[in-house]
């Protein structure tokens, strides 16, 4: 049972996400070669390496929103691409829900994910079912939100969110791409997991696993 997440723990989690992205970068690029230009793993690696460098220099008394803003800016500056504006917007909108806080509860974490998902929707102008990262973020955030009603355990709400994210990622395989470079493929985009959906599901899952194992980190 974990009722509160501190900024210190949040930073630890971000470090772990950096490491997991690095481990999975070839997989993301491989997915992207099937439907796009093959650089999603490279982009994510460049971005999260920049995040890691930023985390090393962050002062310890920052609140969630300030951490998110700094991390988002370094990610965006380093990568551009599509992933840059999408992930940066997610972090900034999510962080804004935890303004001036140094500790957050399950309801606030749920708000964080909801705002992040809405940020991606607004920035990318995609719809559900377009075979993008939004197809992971919206259902995962909704599940986290729903689970957080009457559930104080952050581990539990993220566990449900991560499970949903994984299912949602798998479901992008059967979708027809309607956004981004892969949308020009038409029917040929079917049968492949969307790379942005894959990196998003990984991040949400790592967030969950890292919280579950915080005591061991």
């Amino acid at each position, binding site marked *: 049972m974990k009722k509160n997440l501190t900024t210190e723990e949040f930073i630890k989690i971000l470090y772990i996400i950096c490491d997991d992205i690095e481990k999975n970068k070839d997989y993301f690029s491989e997915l992207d*070669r099937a439907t796009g230009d093959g650089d999603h793993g490279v*982009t994510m690696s460049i971005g999260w390496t920049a995040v890691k460098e930023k985390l090393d220099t962050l002062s310890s008394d920052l609140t969630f929103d300030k951490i998110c803003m700094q991390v988002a800016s370094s990610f965006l500056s380093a990568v*551009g691409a599509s992933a*840059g*504006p999408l992930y940066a917007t997610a972090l900034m909108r999510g962080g804004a829900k935890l303004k001036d806080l140094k500790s957050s509860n399950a309801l606030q974490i749920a708000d964080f994910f909801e705002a992040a998902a809405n940020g991606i929707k607004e920035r990318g102008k995609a719809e559900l079912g377009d075979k993008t990262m939004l197809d992971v973020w919206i259902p995962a955030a909704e599940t986290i939100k729903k689970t957080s009603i009457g559930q104080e355990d952050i581990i539990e709400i993220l566990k449900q969110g991560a499970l949903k994210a994984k299912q949602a990622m798998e479901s992008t395989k059967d979708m027809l791409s309607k956004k*981004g470079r892969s949308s020009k493929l038409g029917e040929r985009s079917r049968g492949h997991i969307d790379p942005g959906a894959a990196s998003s599901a990984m991040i949400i899952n790592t967030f969950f696993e890292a919280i579950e194992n915080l005591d061991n980190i």
Partner: protein
Amino acid sequence: MAFKKIINDPYQVVDEMVEGIVLAHDDILKFANNNKRAVVRKDAPIKDKVGILIGGGSGHEPAFLGYVGKGLADGAAIGNVFASPSPDPIVEATKAINGGKGVVYMYGNYAGDIMNFDMAAEMCSMEDIPVKTVLVTDDIASAPLDKKKERRGVAGDFYVFKVAGAAAEKGMEIDEVCRLAEKANDMTISMGVALGPCSLPHTLEPSFVLEDDEMEIGLGIHGEAGVRKGKLRTADDITVELMEKILNEMDRSKKVSVLVNGLGSTPLMELYIMYRKVHEILGKNNIEIHSSFVGEYVTSLEMNGASITVIKLDDELQPLLEEETLCSMFRV
């Protein structure tokens, strides 16, 4: 097939390339506010001139920073390989080329570029720099004509940037520059063929797979799959197939400029063999060739392949195409 590249560190290729280009062409180019991804004309900002800012991912050289110079673009924002630049260099370049008449953002129609350039435009409007955007959408293979606005931008960048650059250089106001650029885009169509893939310096993996005797018609400049895979055919056959698609959209135009563009590793020999056939086909259709360009204008790293771009000319576009251009990687 193994990819071999003359590089130092795959994660430094873009910075090292840009550094080399600015050193080699320091009579024409400079960095904007020391931002290593924002390159502008040496004489920027030019007072009372609309600024033209182009940009996109790296790997398409001479696009985009090779187009910076008199009569063409005032600045370029440079992204990672095949990835849009982030808003930072776009904003820095915008400030560096703003001569008080606003800045036009011009780039190929890709989701990533749109998000980053739009974010930058928002930031610039907060600093009272008016920004307008014109997207290049010339690739026939990516969407049908009735969805022209959804097409991606490929080698047609060359003509659309050229027209806008000339209009801005002549001192036209921002709305007029945009109108002419939109018109040039409406008149520009491209179609390409790929024979072999490129590879990202970071992965060295082929961007797509074609058998030894195969080609792909309509492949995008980032290796996006095209409209048809088939057996490799002769230069004349390929050119006929590409020109057929292009002529379908020619309506009653009687005068054009033609660009036969190499994608990275196709020799000039092959591009000129294609041009020869293009010339014959246009002649048979009673279409006058006002001017022709053969060479590398928008590439895709070491991709093997070529594209044909045609711009339909009228009395308004033709003189703009004829205006002098002085940029670092080619002369018009």
